[in-house]
Each structure stands twice: as structure tokens, then as C-alpha cells.
């Protein structure tokens, strides 16, 4: 029950900071739109860029990217690293009967839902205005599995960012690391363009990293570009990443708390 209250409290906070929330949303809106403009120009010249990527498919990709980046990219690492670890705010969490992990989870979720909601709004607006350009799957099984993929994607995103936040236990250079990670995610999650467009080698690297499973695969799943066996494969790999990160998180948390309490911050 208390988790529900916390959830609602965060929503209130979002209302208070509505202007700020809106600016964050604009950020996730701008780059995909910019790239969409780029690609529509490219498609004027070459009518079929890659075998099964028409201008509609590309447009849907970037529109869904707006939703994906607002909904699935978690921004908790700064709070964890700076406010809780660096500035010692963690102390008050340690004495409470809540799990820090789930506390952070509940406080981040409303923001993601709010921003994701705005993304959905933009998507629907666009679909109404330009019906021919939007491409989504209609198959209910694919849809259901895609929803699961989205949920798993969120989990990977969240746990990974928590781990990144925990790095502040050991690193003073948190910002440098954080920027490095941010650019890596931008490069390999499918923010720039569909991973299929990359040169083969880079596409392989992207598939080996977890980031593509946060953004790229959920998008193409919901576009219906993945046949059933592939969907299950994606789910399997996502589950693997969730388990790997969960184990890493638990370990780092234990070690980190030892150090944190030991130093007496």
C-alpha cells in the first residue's frame, strides 16, 4: 500500500514540475524527428533503401523510438550516484524498512509512464494525420509477446542504470563514466538508425551488447518485423541479461554498502 502512495506522490511531483517534465519529453522528441527529416530526404532520392525498410517502416521506427526513449531509458543513475552516494542521502534509506532497489523502482516508474504517455500521444496524433505512414503489427500473439519484450526491456534498463549509479561507490569520476555509457547506448541501442542499417561488424557488436534489447528489439517487435521464433529468442536473451545484471547488482550493492558504512559517510 505504501508503494502505491509513493507512486502517487511521484505523480504529484511530476505535475508540480510539469514544465520540466515537458522539456525532458521534448529532448526525446527532437533527435528522432531530426533523423526522420534526414531519412525522408534520403528516401526522396532512393526509393527503397534497404530491402524491407520503406519510408513508412522508417517513419514508424522513429515514432516508436520517441516512445521507447521516453518510456524505456531510465534516468535513475544520477540520483543514486550523486544524491544518495556522493552526498550521503543513502543513509536515510538504509534505516528504512524498504528495499532501496524497489524504492528507486517505484519513484522512477511514474516519470517513465508520464513521458511514455506523451510519446504515445505524439504517435497517435501522427497516426491520425498521416495514416499511410504508420506501420504496426496487427497479430495479437505478436502484440502480446511484444508487450512482454517491452517489460523485460524496462527491467534491463533499470537494473543497468542502478549498477551505473552504484559505480559512485568506487569512482570519483562518475560523470566521465556516465557520458561514456550514454554515448555507447546512443550508438548501439538503435537511436541513430535501425541496427540493420549499420555495417555488418558494428551490427554484430550491437547485438552482443544489452542495449539493443532495450530499444531496438522492442521497436521492431511491435512493428511486426520479427517472426515468432525470433520473438522468443529475443525474450530469452533479455531474460539472460536481466539475470546477469541482477546478480551483478546484488554483488555490487553488498560490496558497496560495506564500503559506504565502513567509511562512515
Amino acid at each position, binding site marked *: 500500500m505504501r508503494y502505491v502512495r509513493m507512486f502517487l506522490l511521484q505523480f504529484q511531483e511530476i505535475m508540480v*514540475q510539469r514544465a520540466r517534465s515537458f522539456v525532458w519529453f521534448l529532448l526525446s522528441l527532437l533527435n528522432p524527428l*531530426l533523423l526522420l527529416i534526414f531519412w525522408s530526404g534520403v528516401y526522396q*532520392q532512393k526509393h527503397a533503401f534497404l530491402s524491407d525498410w520503406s519510408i513508412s517502416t522508417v517513419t514508424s521506427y522513429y515514432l516508436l523510438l520517441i516512445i521507447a526513449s521516453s518510456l524505456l531509458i531510465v534516468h535513475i543513475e544520477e540520483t543514486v550516484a550523486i544524491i544518495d552516494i556522493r552526498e550521503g542521502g543513502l543513509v536515510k534509506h538504509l534505516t528504512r524498512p524498504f528495499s532501496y532497489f524497489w524504492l528507486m523502482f517505484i519513484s522512477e516508474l511514474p516519470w517513465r509512464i508520464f513521458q511514455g504517455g506523451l510519446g504515445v500521444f505524439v504517435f497517435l496524433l501522427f497516426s491520425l494525420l498521416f495514416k499511410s505512414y504508420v506501420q504496426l503489427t496487427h497479430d495479437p500473439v505478436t502484440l502480446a509477446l511484444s508487450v512482454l519484450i517491452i517489460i523485460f526491456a524496462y527491467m534491463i534498463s533499470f537494473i543497468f542504470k542502478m549498477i551505473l549509479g552504484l559505480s559512485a561507490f568506487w569512482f570519483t*569520476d562518475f560523470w*566521465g563514466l556516465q557520458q561514456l555509457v550514454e*554515448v555507447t547506448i546512443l550508438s548501439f541501442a538503435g537511436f*541513430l538508425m535501425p541496427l540493420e542499417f549499420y555495417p555488418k561488424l558494428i551490427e554484430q557488436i550491437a547485438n552482443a551488447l544489452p542495449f539493443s534489447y532495450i530499444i531496438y528489439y522492442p521497436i521492431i517487435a511491435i512493428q511486426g518485423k520479427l517472426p515468432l521464433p525470433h520473438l522468443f529468442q529475443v525474450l530469452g536473451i533479455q531474460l539472460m541479461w536481466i539475470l546477469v545484471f541482477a546478480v551483478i547488482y546484488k554483488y555490487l550493492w553488498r560490496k558497496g554498502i560495506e564500503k559506504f558504512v565502513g567509511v562512515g559517510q
Partner: protein
Amino acid sequence: MKRYVRIYIRLLHLNFSSLLAYRANFVNSVISSSVWGAFSIISILLLTSRTSSLFGWSRHDIIFLTCSYSILIGIFHTFFSRNFEHFSRIVDLGELDTLLIKPIDSQFFISLRYVNYASTIRIVVGIILVSYLLRGETLSIIQLLGYGGMMLFGLLTLYALWYIITSFTIWLSRLSNIVEFLFTITNVSRFPPQMYREFSWYLFLFFFPLTLIITTPTKFLLNKVDMYSVAPLMVTAVLLFIFSRFFWKFALRFYTSASS
């Protein structure tokens, strides 16, 4: 005025001493700058990997545009960005009061107080890449002067735009993330203006000042300059700068009427 020159030299000095005092911060900034610099160049390489020409620009020229962007944004980040990031704190924490009490132009001090020497790495990398892309070509003095001069006007335009938008923080002090927004929207200037014009005239008009910033100086080195290329940027730069001063004075008037 000579006093302002002396003040700025002292600020350069202070910032350098600060850098030496906090080397960890400097390392962080160098990593950030390098990483973003590399990303902007690699991303344009990937985006244009399968096309040889777009929007009337060859692939070589589009990449050249991004490298020029690196130089300009490097200069911008070195001398201005940190000040814009600091801006919301000035309003929120009442630093603005301390500033207004001093016999110094507030816009000058707010815009130039902090210097981020780490961003010079992007300037250097940009210059190296630009030189590499132009290898084997002979350039006239006019071209180089034009490039440098138009860069300055481009900087002025970018600065004025950022300052006008950041001034809104006086009314909406919660919008400290507006600086992030500005970072993102500045990316618009990396692409050829034709890209926007082809998509939508309204969009092109909306982004007009940004589209001029990098493309005008670049045109000098790519031999695409004509009589009508230079004037729009120069006029835009001057007009926007004057407006930024006017708008700032207006914002200050509000601040001094409404704060407690």
C-alpha cells in the same frame, strides 16, 4: 572598455587555477568532450555510409560540415556552455543578487564567468579533421578569413539564441533542463539547410538561424560562396545579439519587481 578586458583576463586566470586545483574534474570533462566529439563524427559517417550525395551536398561535404561543427561547438563549449549550465543556479540560489550589486554588466559576467578548457580538445580534433579533409587543396587568404570570420558570426548567433532562451529561466526557474534542450537543438546546425527546406518550409524558417551557423563559414572553404551567403548570417547574428540584450534587460526588470 579596458576594465572589461582586464576582468576577462583575470577570469581566464581564475578558471585555469581552478582546473589545476581540481584535476579530477578536468579529466571528466576531457572524457566527455572527446566522447561526444567522436560520436558526432562517427554518427554522420554511419548515416551517410550508403549514400554519395544528399540534399545537393556530396558525402565529403556533409562530413566536412560536421567537422566544422566540431570546431565551432568546441569554441562554444569552452567559453560559454558552463555559464549556461550554471544559469539556473544563479536564479534559484540568489546568486543573481550578488551579481547585480556589482558594477559590472550582468550579461557579460554571467556569460563569460566560467571557462571549460577541456572542450578545446574538440576544437583541436575539428581542425585536424578539417585539415585532413582539405589535404591537397590550396586555399586563398580570403577563404580562410571568411571561414574564421563567419565562424565568429556563427558563434554570436548561437550565443544570442542560447541566451534568449535561457533568460526564460527567470520566469520559469524550474526549467533548468532547458540547457539540455539547447544542446540537442544545436545539433540541427550540423545538417545541410536543404534538408529542412525539402521537408517543410515552416520548419526551415523555424530553424533558419541555426542552419546558417555552420554552413556559412563552411561554404567559404568549399568554394560554394556567393554574394548572398554572407549577409544573412551577419545580419541574423547582430539582430539576435541586440535582441538578447534587450530581452535580458526586460527579464531583469521582472526579476527586480517580483523577487523577495
